[in-house]
């Protein structure tokens, strides 16, 4: 188990390193481009050279990468070109806002999709199963940017119940959270529900469930005590992988609702070529994604004794 954990963490560090090299090469390979992006297209050639000189861009590539990585690990991401402040000052509050959004999405989506998945998988092929399965295909087919528009057409312009933007300019408002969270749940729950259903349906065909039913246990007890415990191992991994999906989803949702979060920051930075913000955001995104995958793998091994003891 310990070996496995250290292997996984080692792989995680390796991934982060490779990603950082790729990112560095992609964005900072030619110092000239960096200067243009930082100082703007109308800056003079001398100003660019001076800036490059001062920030050590005439050192060899590997040396530049080393010092860049060193700064990165210390949390010094450079200055944002657009906001004129250190990147970390912009990044952390934005990340916190997205964490709030993600928390509410998960807090509602996970119980909902697990319950629906278990209900559907309990009796495979029943009417309830077909409704839930087809319903989850439909909700997963409507992309987030489409459902943002549809839902705001209904709730903002039609019924006038909810505000159309979630910029939170006057402090935190629950009302402004409802639509973004709803869009993310609608798009994401279908996948988890279908995985839970598949896992549950598989467990229901096993011998020990048949035995439990045949020995006369109440159906409720068979489900709660025997089936659920085994059926929920696979969805656990899927749920952790949803964090990766969520990071994509928040970009669209935050952009549409003008929510001041991490996804919107990354998008703005990309559109404005704000390269140090792009670098910091991309590394944070990959870190969150890789860390959640690592936890998923370790958790899966821990939960599943068949893997743990072999």
């Amino acid at each position, binding site marked *: 188990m310990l070996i496995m954990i250290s292997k996984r963490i080692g*792989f995680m560090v390796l*991934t982060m390193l*490779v*990603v950082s090299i790729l*990112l560095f090469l*992609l*964005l900072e390979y030619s110092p000239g481009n960096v200067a243009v992006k930082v100082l703007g297209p109308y800056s003079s050639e001398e100003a660019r050279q001076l800036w490059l000189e001062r920030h050590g861009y005439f050192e060899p590539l590997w040396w530049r990468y080393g010092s860049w990585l060193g700064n990165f690990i210390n949390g010094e991401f450079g200055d944002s070109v657009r906001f004129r402040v250190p990147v970390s000052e912009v990044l952390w509050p934005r990340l916190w806002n997205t964490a709030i959004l993600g928390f509410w999405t998960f807090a509602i989506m996970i119980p909902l999709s697990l319950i629906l998945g278990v209900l559907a998988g309990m009796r495979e092929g029943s009417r309830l199963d077909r409704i839930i399965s*087809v319903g989850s*295909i*439909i909700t*997963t*087919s*409507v*992309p*987030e*940017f*489409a459902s943002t*528009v*549809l839902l*705001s*057409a209904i709730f*903002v*312009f039609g019924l006038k119940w909810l505000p*159309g933007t979630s910029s939170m300019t006057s402090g935190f408002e629950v009302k402004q959270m409802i639509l973004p969270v709803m869009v993310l749940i609608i798009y994401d729950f279908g996948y988890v529900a279908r995985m839970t259903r598949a896992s549950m349906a598989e467990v229901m065909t096993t011998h020990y469930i048949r035995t439990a039913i045949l020995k006369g246990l109440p159906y409720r007890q068979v489900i709660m005590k025997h089936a659920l415990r085994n059926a929920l191992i696979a969805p656990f991994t899927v749920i952790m992988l949803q964090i*990766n*999906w969520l*990071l*994509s*989803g928040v*970009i*669209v949702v935050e*952009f*549409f609702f003008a929510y001041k979060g991490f996804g919107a920051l*990354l*998008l703005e930075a*990309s*559109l404005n*070529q704000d390269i140090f913000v*792009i670098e910091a*955001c*991309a590394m944070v*995104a*990959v870190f969150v*994604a*890789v860390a959640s*995958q690592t936890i998923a793998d370790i958790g899966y091994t821990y939960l599943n004794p068949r893997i743990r003891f072999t």
Partner: protein
Amino acid sequence: MSNIIETVTPAPTPEAAFMRALKSFALLRESTPGMVGAFLVLFWVIVAILAPLIAPFDPLATLQPMAKPGTVYSMGGTFWLGTDHLGRDILSRIIYGSQTVLFYAPLATLCAYTLGILMGLAAGYHLGWWDIVLSRISDIILSFPVLVLYIIIIATIGSSGINIIIAITFASAPGIMRIVRGLVLDLRNRDYVAAAQTRGESALYIMLVEILPNARGPLIVDACLRLGYVIITIGVLGFLGLGLPPPDPDWGGMINETRKMAMIFPHMTIFPVIAISSLILGFNLLADGLREVSLRD
């Protein structure tokens, strides 16, 4: 010796493979969601092909700004779905937009499949270093949140049709590679592969002629699903302002351009949303139906 050769199961011929593929499409009749999906996809394909014949107006012409659906145009014709803020007919733009999406999405998927299949075949057939290197590369690419990857690529290389295809190929090939690799690991020990090896066929021949045709079943299902994702991706990129440059009609771009006016003129945004959602739903249902049918036999 002749004994052994006789017991070797021959690799299915291309004709037989084609007939089986046809049969599984025929079996699709038994799956209602699959039929609905096939119908939706077919509908949009026909719309795209017949676009010049059925579109009532030129999709780029500015005619009468902000007309409500059903407005009769003074120069003749009706705006069945209204016009957008620049006075372009929305129905015509949706019709021509289907051409855009049904051109770029399959092309990008095809590119991603070509690369992914080659990677998967190489990794699964040769194993060893090939496998380690290719698997690690795809693990790393797959660890990116997809949209983050697209945004970084497009922001760096710029947004154009070709760059979108490059970005999609780069981001989806690793996922395809994993599937192909898994299938190849299962197929590489079959008798007909051993027979081809004994005949002295080259590795490339064995991979492409002996193994690949036998791995197609799961790949067809995955391709349908992936087409849906690629359409979403193209739509999202258009929506975020990183898609195909205007003025060409592109559903995601149409939604983005008009979403701020959705309060007063909901028709400008709703119809492209319905169009793109129905096409994605079509591919998802088709994939689901095909999987159901293929599991049956």
